[in-house]
Each structure stands twice: as C-alpha cells, then as structure tokens.
C-alpha cells in the first residue's frame, strides 16, 4: 500500500474549445475508512487558473497554503496575475525543491492563458510528485483512479468541445472512473473555465 493511496482521491482536467475543465471527487479516507465526503482538493489560484492536488491529504493542505502564499506575493509585487505556464513552473520547482523527501502529491493544473494577439488559449498540465511537467493537448489525469480515468477519457473525449459539452464529458468520465475505484468517489465537483466566467457544479454521485 503506497503512501500516495493513503487518503484516496482523483483529479482530471480536459481541454475544450476556448475553455478548460477540471474535476475531482470529494472523498477523504483513512485507508479504507471514509472520513469526509466534502474534502476540497481543487483550488482556484486566479480567476483563470485552477489547481488540483490529489495525493496525501496533509500535503494537499500544506501545498495549497504554500501556493497561495507564493501566488499572492507574485500578484502584489508584479501587479498582475500569474499566467498558467509560469504557475506550472512554480508548481514544478516547488515540488523539485523536495526531490529527496517529496510531497506525496501529483498536481493537475488547468487554466486559460493569454496569447500575444489578445486571445486566449486553453492550458492543462500535470506533474509527478517531484515536479516533472507533462503538458497535454487533450486531457490529464491523476490520483488513485488515474488508470481508470485514462480508459474512460480515451473513449469519451473529442477535440473542440463547447463548455456545456465539455462539462458533460468530464463529468461522465470522472463519475464512471471513480465508481471502479474503492478509494475515490463520495461526491464530485467540476469547474469549467471559460473566457468570461467559471462554472462550478457539484455532482450527485454514488455514496457507497
């Protein structure tokens, strides 16, 4: 039993047409025993960046607080909000600082970045627990249900989905994957990030 699976939990992010979505389950467990069905592991970093932190729950809290500290200092000194690419590298370097005693978290980043022409471009990425970044064009998965998420996402995802269709795709992917995983589930939350707003919805899931 790996320490990565101690508390359970999974996160997935997907690219759509001028939008991205990130979703996660809400279970906090202590091995097989469920403790909470409302454990938030996806956090808003800016209006356009969300970060998912599946893995050991103590490190979810620690990293959340550390990233908020770093991003707030960045925002106030630079007088602008951080871009997803820069944030991904901040995540990566923070994790690599602990190369030989890592945080047991494999983060997922979803956001919209600004293009030089003034438009927006979807951005998703995931890293391993020591900060090796995987930039993806379609979807990224992480957590105890990652193998199942890969399978379902591979079958359901298609390019250029509109926000509502992307919401349906990511929701179905997550719900069906976590039902096959004993350590994930117990409710789910989805964020769809579009140009002018973020749609956040809680999903009804199997509670067994």
């Amino acid at each position, binding site marked *: 039993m790996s320490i990565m699976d101690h508390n359970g939990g999974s996160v997935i992010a997907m690219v759509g047409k001028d939008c991205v979505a990130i979703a996660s389950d809400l279970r906090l467990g202590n091995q097989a025993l469920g*403790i909470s069905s409302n454990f938030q592991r996806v956090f808003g970093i800016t209006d356009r960046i969300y970060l998912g932190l599946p893995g*050991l729950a103590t490190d979810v809290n620690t990293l959340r607080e550390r990233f908020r500290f770093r991003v707030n200092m960045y925002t106030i000194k630079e007088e602008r909000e951080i871009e997803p690419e820069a944030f991904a590298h901040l995540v990566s370097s923070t994790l690599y600082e602990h190369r030989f005693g890592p945080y047991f978290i494999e983060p997922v980043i979803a956001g919209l970045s600004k293009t030089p022409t003034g438009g927006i471009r979807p951005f998703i990425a995931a890293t391993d627990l020591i900060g090796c970044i995987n930039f993806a064009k379609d979807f990224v998965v992480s957590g105890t249900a990652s193998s199942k998420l890969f399978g379902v996402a591979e079958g359901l995802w298609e390019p250029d989905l509109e926000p509502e269709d992307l919401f349906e795709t990511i929701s179905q992917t997550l719900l069906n994957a976590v039902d096959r995983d004993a350590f994930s589930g117990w409710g789910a939350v989805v964020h769809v990030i579009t140009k002018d707003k973020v749609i956040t919805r809680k999903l009804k899931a199997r509670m067994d």
Partner: protein
Amino acid sequence: METSFALTGKGYVIVAADTTSARSIVKMKNDEDKIKTVSPHLLMSYSGEPGDTVQFAEYIERNLRLYQIRNLYPLRPSAAASWIRRSLAESLRSRSPYSVNLLVGGYDTSTHEPKLYWIDYLGTVSEVPFAAHGYGSYFVLSLLDRYHDPEAPLEEGLATLKRCIQEVSKRLIVSPEKYKVKVVDKDGVREVEL
C-alpha cells in the same frame, strides 16, 4: 482501546473521549482527562502515542494561550485548527514526529457557528459534522451517518452520543468503561455527566 468521538449540533459541539491510560496490556489509570480546553471556546481531544500526546497537547495549549495574552482575543476555531495542523505537518517531516490524533471542536463567537475539525498525526485536517478516532471509529462513524442531525438540540445530541458509546461497548473487544464528555457552545466549555 483508545476511542474518541465528537459531533456538532444546533449551536454546540460535543466531544467525548475514554478515560483509560494503558501501558501495553495493563490499565494504569481510568480517570485520565484526554480533552483539553485550549481556549475559552475551544476543546481538543487527543489520543495516540503515550507521552507524545500530553507533550503536544500542552505545547498547543500554551501557544494558544500566548496568542490570547498578546492579542487580547483568542484565535478563532478555524485559525487554531489550521495552526495545529501546521504544527503536526511540520513535525511529521522532522527527526522525531509526534504521533497524535486530534479532534478540535469549538464555537466561533464572531460567526456564531459550531465548528469541528478532524486532525490526524500526518497533519490532515478536515471540517466535518461528526468525527471519531481509534478503533471505535469503525463502528461509530456508520452509526452517526444514520443518526446525526446538525440541527438537533443538545439533549438529542447527547442521546446520539450515548448510542455511540453503547455500540462501542457492545462490539469492540476491549472497550473502554468510562468516558469524559465535554460540550462547547456560546457560553463556553463545560463538562457533562451522561
């Protein structure tokens, strides 16, 4: 075996912990108070490695007291829970980690809400309507799933708590004989006899 549980209700939190102090297979004492009043509206039950528990609980107690002396008002429950969590998380990656599990229950006097936090020795914190630590948790949590009501008055809350205690004594092989029960609400902390 060590067991502690807590539940919220309408404007209050009940925290209960067994009173046995054991070394190996021997019961050394059966009137140990394992719930500390760490500030006027905050209770903390602790269990885990003997020695670590009291040491860590006193460290928390004195530091929260120092904050209150310096600033004239105590930390709010959420801030206190976050600070306690951080202390444990830092300790986890130190040379000698504390192995202490906590339930932190309090009444937030500025928002007028009861708050309960489940904290384990890794530094995991989660705000929950009810919580438990120890072997009793395997029986009690499913029971509370069925009977807990966040809007219940104190009498009902205490009745639910009695159910929990009965269940543990019925099903757990080595069940504790006595519990200490404390309540925190808008008037502060008090002990209750069941």
